[in-house]
Every structure is written in structure tokens, then in C-alpha cells.
């Protein structure tokens, strides 16, 4: 147990050490393009204020972009910088003019020198001092002013003022009335110091410079470190002198200050390699940036890292981590600075190469990579030693000469995982239908892989299906890919997938349908066969439609599981339904009109018969009373009957039962009375006749 613990501990220590100085990857092209897009120029060629313009010009220069219109910006600077503008604008104007080699730079500079020298006395904060002193140092460097010999006198005492603002542990206060000290302010202090030394030399301020150098070393040791080995200064407070804070801007300011200071000191500043790599890792792993200012600080810090007298970290990258054996790819390593400028003077050695997942001896050890002139690449031909697979490489990168190795370092061993791919050959593909009991083949077919042939088979549940094939790696050995699937897809869409297993080169899958009927849900019919073979190291991964199998399985017994639902094409799931029209009840069949009409006529015939009969018997109305009440009552009686008959017709045509009954009541009464009178008169008359 203790031993295991010990090993874990050793591993942990080893990891943390390697992590600290493990190799860097340079700023990628994509990140550079993304950064470039953050700087958007205006119509007058500037990028906003003088500060924004300087940041954009500097960043685009570091990104090697030619999207800067130098003439326009020089004009913009000449217009904007004059004796009345503040020290900040003056500083950025002078710096921009320096970057673009503006023709009018000297003229502009001359006009602001008196204001700058005057401003030096009134500068309250470190930031003001920095702008002024740095602007003066730039002007002096380029001899833009006739008064530059007087600068040394002007900056006298500046370092004393800077030293007075020093806090403990290497931090600084921005101004005298401030109580908090910060790392960011220290960055400005170092830059002021560097500028002062630029102007009046190292000797005149030896004691102050020594103090500042010690402070810088103290501050560097105070940097924080995250789990990925990145070093940074973690201050998130904004201040009223220099604006935004945040780890990126603070760390960039400190790094800029320290590298500037190291640049002017005769013996430089010693910073541990781990720290420098930590800073590089921090600025390279910042990720996506939000603003142009952030991009500027990132690029500025990276440029300080690739151009300093402390130590220049080198980044190691690979053109491709996937190498193809069939196209004879070579391992290509690029050594560059953090911003991607190539470093041609390196010695690269593959310390070891292990095949991943195999506890065998390394495939190769101690191989030197060849340098390709002009291409800034280091290549190694893998083909002879490598089989397809994944390999862990450990590569040592060293500057070629001892002299260079004081200036440059690529950190510890570079680890890389590469994948070597090749074309796998597929041969002896055989599909056979076997008898389940005897195992004797009833049907066998061989297919040619290069032609992607197809087979048509049929089988029933008493038979077996056997698929065999060989896979051979490019070097002729056995090869086991990750994905070797044999798929049967029923016409209804239900899929069955089997993993084909191997012994050596031979892959074999045997399906005994008798045991699989339930798995196949008793689905008979056509199955499409597919063989899918794929692996990360296989260049010719394939999906091969092997043909179709007509499978005859027994009927599903009661209670067998139903096949799972198969997903339909989404576009077909919804759609209009079929229209429905109502079928109306057909009217009953009726006799034709002529038939009705003729029967109508027939029904009238008895009436006609009656009339004819009556006229033939010589019907008369001789009994009709001739006068008086009898006539009236007879007319009333028959009129009443006629009225009742007409009422019946009206009832049929329009009247309802209630009106009809009402009227019928009156008519009935009237007819009754008149009928009684009329009939009694007739009876009297007939009795008279009888008696007579």
C-alpha cells in the first residue's frame, strides 16, 4: 500500500513539474483572425481615440496585418496631437507616429516637448509620469527634438518620486494620496524606470534602480498559479488612473514593465523559467476576447514574451496529429515563438515513442528530427518503424547552441499523441447459409470487397447464417478495428445489430436463427444486410451493403413481444386526411308521373259514372221545396254540407286543426238545425204522400 502511495506521489510530483514547463502551443491562426476582427477602422483611418488607434495599430502590426492606412493615421495624429492635449493623448500620438514612421513625427514631437517637460513637474500619479517620461524617451530615441539633450535634466528626481510610492512586496501606489498598492501600478513604475534609464543612462540612478529590481523580483514571486500551470496577477479592481483592471490587463502591464526594465539593466532580471512559461500559458489560454482593448493587452504581453532579455519561451506545435501511412506522411513539428514566428535554430529529438495501450518496449528512442531549411519545420519519417495505431511521443526541444539556450527555452519534454492511419485490406468475405443440425453449408457465396458486390440469400429458422472475412493491417498483421458491426434491417425498419468478433485476422459471425426468432420478433421477409467496419486508424472505413436475406420465420405465438415502433419520416407523420363526403339517404322510389296521372283519372271515373248514371235515370229535383222556410232550410242544409267539405279541403291546404274544429263546430250546428228542418219537412211530405 505504501509503495502504491509512493508511486502515486512520485507521479503527482512528476506531473506537476511537467505541467509547469510543459510545451506551449502558439497563438493559432483562428485566434489571430478573431483578434483582427475586433479592430474596426473608421472613415478617417483612425480607430477612435488616440489610445484606441495606438492599440489597434500596435496589435495589427503584431498580427502582421496590413489593414492599417498609415498616411491617414499619421494625418490623424498630426491633427490631434498639439500642445493643448493631455499627456495621455500626446503619449499615444507619439507612440503611433513611431510605429508608423510618420513623416511629420518630428514636427509633432517638437510642438509638445515644452508641455511634456512642464507636465513632468505637475504629474500627480504614476500613470501621468509614465505617459510623460515614456513620450520623452521615445522622442529622444528618434532625435525628434532639438531639445532632447535637456531631457536628462528634466527627468532628474523622477525615480526618487517613483521610489517614494513603493508599497511592500513589490507593489506600488498610483499616487501619494492613495492608500492601496497594486501590482498594476508596479508595472507602470518599472516602465517609468526603464524610460528614465533610456533617457539618462543607468549610472546616475544606481541605488533607485537596484531597489526597483529587487521589488520586481519580489513581485514576480507573488504571481498566482492556476491548476493548468498558468501564472497571473489576480486583481479585479478598476482604478481611477488607468481604468480597467482584470487579470489580463494587470498581468500584461506587469509583464511589460518587467521586460522593459530587464531590457535596460546591464545584468537583466532573473526570472524562473517556470514563471515565464506560466505567463505565456496564461496569455495563450485566455480564449475568446470580448474587446479590442483585451486583444491589445494579450498581444502586447505575448510580444513582450517573445522579445525580451529574460527568457523567450518557445512553442511547439504539430502540423497534424494524424499521419497516414498510405500517403507517406511525415511527422512535422514547428517550433516558434508564442506569436508564431518560426524559430529555426532548434534541435529536436524523439526521446521515446510508445504505442498506446501496450505495455511493450518503446517503438523507437532517441531519434533526431531533420530540419527543413526555409520551411522552419522539423520532420521525421515514421513509415519504417510504425504500425497503424496511436502513439505517445516524447520530444525534446532544445536551442541548437549553448548561447541560444540562455535566451530561449522550449520547456520540458513535449508530449504528443499521434495517430498513424493506414488502409486495411479486406479479403475472403464469405456468406454462407448452413444447416442448423449438421452444420453443412447449403449455400455459400464469396464477395469481392473492391467491387462492393452484393448477394441475395434466403434462409429459414432451421438454418444458420455465417459471415466470415479477414482484416489485415498495412504491415500484414492482425487488425481489430473498434467498430465491426453486422446489421440486418427488416423491410419494416426494425434493425438488428451484431458485433463481429475476431480471432487473429479472421472475423466470424454466426447467427442461429432458431435461437434468435424472439430477438427478431418473428418478423419474416426481406432483410437488408450491412457490414460496417471503422476505426480511427483505418483510412478506408466502410459501410458495405452486402445484399438481402429473405428470412422465413415461424408465426409469432400468442403473447410474443411486438416489434418496437419504428420512427417514420417526420415529414410523413403529419398530413391532410382523406376527405369525407356524407352519403345522403336516397329518396324512396316513386311511380312515374303518367302512372299517377292515369290512376288519378281512374279515381275520377266513379264520379263521372255517377253523373252519367244520374242523368241516364233522369234525376230531377222535384221534391225540392219551392218556397218558405223549407226551401231556406234545404238550401242551408246542403250549403252547410258543401261548406264542411270545403272546410275539409281548406284543412288539407292551409288551416290547422284548431281553426278547423272551431269553424266545424259552427257549421255542424248550423247544418244540424237546417238538416233537422229540411229532413222533417221531407218526412212530413212523404207521410202526406203515403197517407194520401
Amino acid at each position, binding site marked *: 500500500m505504501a509503495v502504491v502511495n509512493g508511486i502515486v506521489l512520485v507521479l503527482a510530483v512528476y506531473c506537476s513539474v511537467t505541467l509547469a514547463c510543459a510545451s506551449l502551443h502558439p497563438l493559432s491562426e483562428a485566434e489571430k483572425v478573431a483578434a483582427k476582427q475586433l479592430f474596426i477602422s473608421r472613415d478617417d483611418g483612425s480607430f477612435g481615440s488616440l489610445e484606441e488607434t495606438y492599440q489597434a495599430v500596435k496589435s495589427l502590426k503584431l498580427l502582421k496585418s496590413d489593414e492599417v492606412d498609415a498616411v491617414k493615421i499619421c494625418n490623424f495624429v498630426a491633427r490631434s496631437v498639439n500642445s493643448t492635449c493631455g499627456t495621455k493623448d500626446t503619449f499615444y500620438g507619439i507612440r503611433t507616429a513611431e510605429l508608423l514612421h510618420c513623416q511629420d513625427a518630428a514636427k509633432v514631437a517638437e510642438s509638445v516637448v515644452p508641455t511634456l517637460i512642464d507636465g513632468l513637474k505637475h504629474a500627480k500619479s504614476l500613470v501621468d509620469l509614465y505617459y510623460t517620461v515614456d513620450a520623452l524617451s521615445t522622442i529622444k530615441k528618434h532625435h525628434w527634438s532639438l531639445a532632447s539633450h535637456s531631457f536628462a535634466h528634466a527627468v532628474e528626481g523622477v525615480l526618487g518620486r517613483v521610489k517614494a510610492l513603493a508599497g511592500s512586496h513589490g507593489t506600488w501606489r498610483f499616487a501619494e494620496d492613495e492608500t492601496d498598492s497594486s501590482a498594476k501600478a508596479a508595472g507602470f513604475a518599472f516602465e517609468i524606470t526603464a524610460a528614465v534609464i533610456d533617457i539618462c543612462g543607468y549610472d546616475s540612478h544606481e541605488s533607485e534602480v537596484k531597489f526597483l529590481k529587487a521589488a520586481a523580483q519580489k513581485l514576480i514571486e507573488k504571481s498566482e498559479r492556476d491548476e493548468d500551470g498558468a501564472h497571473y496577477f489576480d486583481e479585479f479592481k478598476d482604478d481611477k488612473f488607468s481604468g480597467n483592471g482584470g487579470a489580463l490587463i494587470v498581468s500584461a502591464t506587469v509583464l511589460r514593465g518587467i521586460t522593459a526594465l530587464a531590457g535596460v539593466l546591464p545584468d537583466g532580471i532573473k526570472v524562473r523559467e517556470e514563471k515565464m512559461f506560466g505567463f505565456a500559458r496564461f496569455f495563450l489560454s485566455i480564449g*475568446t476576447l*470580448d474587446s479590442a482593448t483585451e486583444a491589445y493587452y494579450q498581444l502586447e504581453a505575448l510580444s513582450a514574451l517573445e522579445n525580451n532579455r529574460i527568457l523567450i519561451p518557445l512553442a511547439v506545435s504539430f502540423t497534424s496529429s*494524424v499521419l497516414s501511412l498510405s500517403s507517406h506522411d511525415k511527422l512535422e513539428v514547428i517550433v516558434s515563438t508564442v506569436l508564431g514566428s518560426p524559430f529555426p535554430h532548434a534541435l529536436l529529438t524523439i526521446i521515446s515513442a510508445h504505442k498506446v495501450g501496450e505495455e511493450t518496449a518503446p517503438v523507437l528512442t532517441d531519434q533526431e528530427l531533420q530540419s527543413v531549411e526555409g520551411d522552419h519545420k522539423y520532420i521525421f519519417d515514421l513509415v519504417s518503424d510504425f504500425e497503424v495505431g496511436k502513439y505517445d511521443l516524447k520530444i525534446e526541444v532544445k536551442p541548437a547552441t549553448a548561447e541560444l539556450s540562455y535566451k530561449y527555452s522550449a520547456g520540458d519534454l513535449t508530449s504528443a*499523441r499521434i*495517430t498513424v492511419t493506414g488502409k486495411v485490406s479486406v479479403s475472403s468475405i464469405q456468406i454462407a447459409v448452413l444447416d442448423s443440425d449438421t452444420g453443412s453449408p447449403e449455400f455459400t457465396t464469396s464477395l469481392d470487397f473492391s467491387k462492393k458486390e452484393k448477394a441475395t440469400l434466403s434462409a429459414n429458422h432451421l438454418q444458420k447464417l455465417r459471415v466470415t472475412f479477414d482484416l489485415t493491417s498495412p504491415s500484414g498483421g492482425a487488425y481489430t*478495428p*473498434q*467498430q465491426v*458491426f453486422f*446489421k440486418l434491417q427488416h423491410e419494416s425498419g426494425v*434493425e438488428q445489430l451484431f*458485433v463481429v468478433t475476431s480471432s487473429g485476422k479472421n472475423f466470424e459471425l454466426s447467427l442461429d436463427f432458431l435461437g434468435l426468432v424472439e430477438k427478431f420478433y418473428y418478423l419474416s421477409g426481406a432483410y437488408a444486410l*450491412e457490414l*460496417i467496419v*471503422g*476505426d*480511427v486508424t*483505418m483510412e478506408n*472505413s466502410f*459501410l458495405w451493403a452486402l445484399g438481402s436475406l429473405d428470412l422465413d420465420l415461424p408465426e409469432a405465438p400468442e403473447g410474443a413481444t411486438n416489434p418496437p*415502433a*419504428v*420512427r*417514420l419520416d*417526420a*415529414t410523413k*407523420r*403529419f*398530413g*391532410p*386526411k*382523406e*376527405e*369525407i363526403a*356524407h352519403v*345522403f339517404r336516397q329518396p324512396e322510389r*316513386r*311511380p312515374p308521373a303518367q302512372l*299517377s*296521372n292515369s*290512376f*288519378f283519372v281512374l*279515381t*275520377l271515373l*266513379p*264520379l263521372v259514372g255517377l*253523373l252519367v248514371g244520374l242523368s241516364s235515370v233522369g*234525376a*230531377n*229535383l*222535384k*221534391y225540392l221545396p219551392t218556397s218558405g222556410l223549407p226551401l231556406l232550410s*234545404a238550401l242551408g242544409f*246542403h250549403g252547410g*254540407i*258543401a261548406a264542411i*267539405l270545403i272546410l*275539409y279541403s281548406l284543412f288539407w291546404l292551409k288551416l290547422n286543426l284548431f281553426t278547423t274544429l272551431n269553424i266545424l263546430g259552427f257549421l255542424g250546428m248550423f247544418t244540424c238545425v237546417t238538416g233537422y228542418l*229540411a*229532413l222533417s219537412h221531407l218526412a212530413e211530405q212523404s207521410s202526406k204522400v203515403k197517407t194520401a
Partner: protein
Amino acid sequence: MASSTRSQALLLLVVLLPALVAAFSEDNPTDQRVLVLLEDLALKSSHSIFFKSLSSRGYELDFKLADDTKLALQRYGEYLYDALILFAPSVEGHLGGNLDVAAILDFVDSGHDLILAADTHTSDLIRDIATECGVDFDEDTEAVVIDHINFAIEGESDHSLIIGDKLVESDVILGKGGVKDPVLFRGIGHSVNPASDLVVTVLSASPSAFSAPPNAVLKSPPALTGTSISLVSLVQARNNARILVSGSLDLFSDKFFKSSVQKFGSSSRSGSGNEKLAVELSKWTFHERGHLKAVNVNHHKVGEKDEPSMYRITDNLEYSLEIYEWTGKAWKPYQADDVQVQFYMMSPYVLKTLDHNGKGLFYTSFQVPDVYGVFQFKVEYRRLGYTSLTLSKQIPVRPFRHNEYERFIKAAYPYYGGAFSMMTGFFIFGIVFLYHK
């Protein structure tokens, strides 16, 4: 006077409040507030193009860390947001402010929209939310979707950066013309219930894909393989809340938006379709497309204008309604040839496709069946990618009245003739019988 003004203001507030906090509402479809929960604030910049596209379309994005303790979806019972974007695949347990699965589901249940992205390491919380929405991520937490044939050469050597080109063919989901360029995907696969009508797989894997840990040795078939692996799915709940579930958070990233794609074995490069896909899907999810509303449902007898209280059997009637689609800015007349109306009592008696005039008015006419009872006009419009329209209006149908039947039927003339000739005969015979001598 002052008190009346105040009470008016109060009334206005009471009337407006529900509109302010409701989800996508047809009355006030603009001004959507979106809560964006991020795992890491770096996502805000690494996915900036996607977020910019949202804010340029008028959404107010409120970025919060997923474990921000002050998170709240609602205050005093009212929701503060209209939609939620959950870009925090690996947040464990519960989100900040005690937002748990139930809170998120309540949010969706009340009609709000959700965009959910998973990634290679997806926590149980995110899986649970997805499962409740009908999307089951692969249970193997190490598994990613791998395709040894359709992968992009830009990706890692494990072939997990796959190219998806099997997209659903639907203009309403993917916008006009669809997404032509291949879509880069790196993440986990999921499966959806094939029988469900509410879930639509937008992007599915190719037949050669499978879902397994990258370096696993496969002894048995993986749980998810081939085209049954869904990569991006959409859910439209019954309350028309919309949910976008993606197995890949990178799909929305600036890197994938801007990256060019070269499929292994192909010599041509093309831009990625990710930006179009992500933007179009967000438009769909936030109801900028495919949200229908039906208004002015009207029916009347042919030749009349007013809606009757009931119809008689065999009446001829006209039915019309107007359907509009939300375009993100305005309601636009909807055009389709497959809107159908049913005249329904227990089962449809009449089912007819509506004609339309191209200006949103859909109309048809038909004869009421000769069956009486209580009927319904039913419009059940369910189409891929559109919100479902379900309208029903009850209307009784009565039989003929006694006086509405046919009079003077030709076939009955013999009966009429018989009756009248008998009546006339009776009258004449009566007179002759009494007065004949």
C-alpha cells in the same frame, strides 16, 4: 378626479401584468426576455455570434452563471422571463437559486420556451430535464457520437467531430431553402420516442455512426447506433411551448459557425451550416416561424350572413376562418392547401379541405348531412413545425318540421282524386237522393 386616474392606472396595470409576464402570447408577441444560464462566462464570448443574432432580433438576453445563487425564474408567482437558454451541460445537482428539474418543467409547462444544449460531460440534472421533455440522452456518461466514415478532418483523431447532413426537410423549421452546408457536431446522441408526435428529430446521425466512449472496445452493440441516433431534436408541447435539445454545445459556438468543413475522403471544403442551423432553430423555438393563430371563425347558410343558432338537415352552409402566421415582426396571412374542417358528431360526417384566397381567408361550403343531433365544426390542424390549431364550435342540427316536407306529391294524385271525387259524389248524391221524384 385624482382617485379615478389612479384607479385607471391600477386597472391598466392589472390588465397589462399578465401580458408582461406571459410566454409567447399572440396579443403581444414581441419583447421577449430570455434568461441565458451559462456554465462559464467564457461561453458568452465563445458563442457570441449566436447570442448576437438573438439580441439583434430584439431579445433581451440576461446572462447568468448557472450556479448563481440569486437565480429566479419567477417572482411573486409571475415569470420574469419568456424563454430560457440552458448552456450549462455539466452543472450538477440543481442550478443556483434552487432551480431544479421541477422548476424548469413548470416553466415549460406554463408555455415558455427552452433551448438546452448538452455536451460530452452532461450532468444528471440536464439529462433529467431532457428526459422529461421526451429526449433520452445515451445513458453511458462517457459515450459520444462517433462516426468513422462521416467525420470532419479538422477534428480530433477520435472521429467525434462528425458531419451531419441528414436534416429534416421542413421549410418552417429550417427556414426557406433549408440548411445546405454540412453541420459540424461534437457531443452526445439521444433517442426520441418514435411513436411521439411532439418530438421531431432535426438532425440525425448517418447509418455508420454509433454512440460509445471514444476509446472503448466494443464487445456488444452500443445502445444507440445508426440513423436512430438523434443529434438535435425539437419538441413542441401540447401547450405550444417549444424546446430545442442539442447533444452538442459546440454546435452553437463561433468556432463551428466560422469553421470550414472538409469531410474525410472528400477533396472539397465548404463552410459549415452551423450558423444557419442554430439561428434558424432559435427562430423556430422562439416562435418567429410556424406559430399560427386562427381568427374570425364564421359559418352561415348559403345566401345569408348571420350565424344561425341551429341548422336543419340538408341545409347548405358556408364555413370560413382566417389563419395568420407570426413572422417575428408581424402576423402574415398563412397559405396552405391542406387545412381541413370536419363536421363532427362522434365521428366526422363531412371532412373537407378548405380553399383559400391567399390572404389568410380559408373557406368552403357543404351540405349539412341528413342526420340530426349536436354537431361540431372542428379544425384540427397539425403539421410538422407548426403550432397545432384546434378549434371546435358546437352547432345543433334539427330534422324537418311537419310543414317542411314536400306537398302535392305526384304519386299521391290518385289519393287526392279519390277523396275529392268521393266528396263531390257524396254532395251530389245527397241532393239527388233527397229531392228526386
